[in-house]
């Protein structure tokens, strides 16, 4: 069990981070597309965690969630601690992977044919119905690929995680941290094993995405307007 704990932790962290990024990413992307002013600025802020070194992101997260941080104080009053906990690992992975989901969703929404939305309105469909029945199916390929990238990024997250959540075996040590510890401790066999495991999981992710996009391309080809 102790041997498997980095895998379990990694998947827990990645799944939780992906879920949060998915919901937030879709929602925020939809709002940003509607923005008329400050679009570039807001977009820049939201994409920042992607381009900053993860250690810098981790540093900021420590500032925010640390004992003297803005949120850290409030959370401490509620008996919740983030630093050196699984929650911290999830937060770090979420912040770092969020821009991938957000950007993919935004791209998909922006490229979506607006006439279909207008058509939905003229025939009396509600905005919610248009979103779920028309926009989401049309944006599915972009959103799914964003989802897979987000998951892969969260799974491999290292820098921000080690800053905020530390590297505590059995508690916050995910696979990428386990590799670091194994290499640092001179344990070659263990590091090889984790490298192989991570590669397998990542490859499976990409394979899944390609399979899926090939399938949607096929249905999309049947769905394009051919006269």
């Amino acid at each position, binding site marked *: 069990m102790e041997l498997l704990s980095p895998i379990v932790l990694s998947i827990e962290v990645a799944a939780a981070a992906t879920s949060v990024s998915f919901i937030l990413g879709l929602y925020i992307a939809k709002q940003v597309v509607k923005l008329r002013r400050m679009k570039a600025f807001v977009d820049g802020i939201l994409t920042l965690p992607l381009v900053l070194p993860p250690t810098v992101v981790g540093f900021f997260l420590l500032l925010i969630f640390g004992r003297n941080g803005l949120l850290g104080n409030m959370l401490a009053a509620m008996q919740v601690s983030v630093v050196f906990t699984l929650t911290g690992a999830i937060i770090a992975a979420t912040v770092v992977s969020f821009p991938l989901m957000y950007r993919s969703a935004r791209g998909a929404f922006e490229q979506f*044919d607006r*006439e*279909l939305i*207008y*058509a*939905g*309105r*003229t*025939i*009396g*469909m*509600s905005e919610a119905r248009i979103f779920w*029945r*028309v926009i989401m*199916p*049309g944006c599915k390929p972009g959103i799914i690929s964003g989802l897979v990238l987000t998951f892969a990024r969260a799974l491999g997250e290292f820098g921000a995680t080690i800053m905020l959540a530390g590297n505590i075996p059995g508690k916050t040590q995910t696979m990428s941290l386990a590799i670091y510890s194994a290499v640092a401790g001179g344990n070659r066999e263990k590091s090889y094993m984790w490298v192989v495991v991570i590669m397998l999981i990542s490859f499976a992710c990409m394979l899944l995405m390609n399979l899926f996009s090939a399938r949607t391309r096929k*249905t*999309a*080809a*049947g*769905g*394009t*307007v*051919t*006269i």
Partner: protein
Amino acid sequence: MTLSACIKKKLGKFTLDVKFETSGGILALLGASGSGKSMTLKCIAGIETPDEGRIELDGRVLFDSAKRINLPTRERKVGYLFQHYALFPNMTATENVMAAARGSRAERRRIAEEKLASMYLLDSKNKYPGQLSGGQQQRVALARMLVGEPATILLDEPLSALDSYLKWQLEMELVEIFRGFDKPVVYVTHNRNEVYRISDDVCVLEHGKSENVVPTQDMFLKPRTLAAALISGCKNFSRARKTGEHRVFAEDWNLELDVAAAVPEEVKHIGVRSHAIKAAHISRGLSQKEPLPGDAHANVFACRIDKIVREMFSVIAMISPEGADPGSKHAAIRIKMVNDKWDALGDPAVSFSIDIRIDPAEVLLLE
């Protein structure tokens, strides 16, 4: 059953300023691309919001800037046929139509299938838009639009993306459907032939500004303005001023013309359609000019051939009156005749001189 719109909208340098009213029948909004036709339809449908104005449909106010009324699209009961039909690609024909129907799922399915059956589409009911032909797509889009029982129908250049054969077929289908529709239909197009064939009334748009609504026949036979004459297909224009009860002086052509109709004081331009200009013969100088046949002595002028373009069955020649200033914008006159007639003239070449006759009854007097 009346649709009235009076809207203004500024978009950068472009200003839309449209006013029209229609009750039943097909009203064509005719204008070149970029004249604001589609924008007008989008304002009526509530997809775009005008800066000011009022839109009313069957006594319901859809938009009124003064009273701050702006009904959302879905409550306007406006049927909109998009240029590329805007069918939902992830839904079958039936599901597309169901999306516009109301009631329980079973009820909506029944309504949708009934509508598809009435459009001869039952065989395609489970097909996706990408699997349908252009004609079937148009009919599915129409079915989807009609199932919501709209109070008016707006068509945004539904035929312009099609090749000519399919276009003809779909145009006839459209007309058949709208002849039986007793509510106002607004048809946007840049194609004057479509307007002539399809519409009852026409409203010309130029640079965002609408002219008065006129019966289609009048607009083609008796255009009143330069813009209307241009868009009705007239190719030859000259600035003009009145010189007599039935005489005008065409400034660009440097000619004085007889006109059958009484010339109004405010005439600013004249127009002559290409087919109304008859080329008589190659002139051999004025002294040797042979008399023209029939009554035609009026309005005969010597012109120089500037350019000859041969088409499959006819010849188009650009000519200019010999007295005209070649730098003038409208100096060139375009004439068109069938190959045989051109050859009978002796197949004149560029820089030859020919005599033309402009029929006094065919001169359009424009404001």
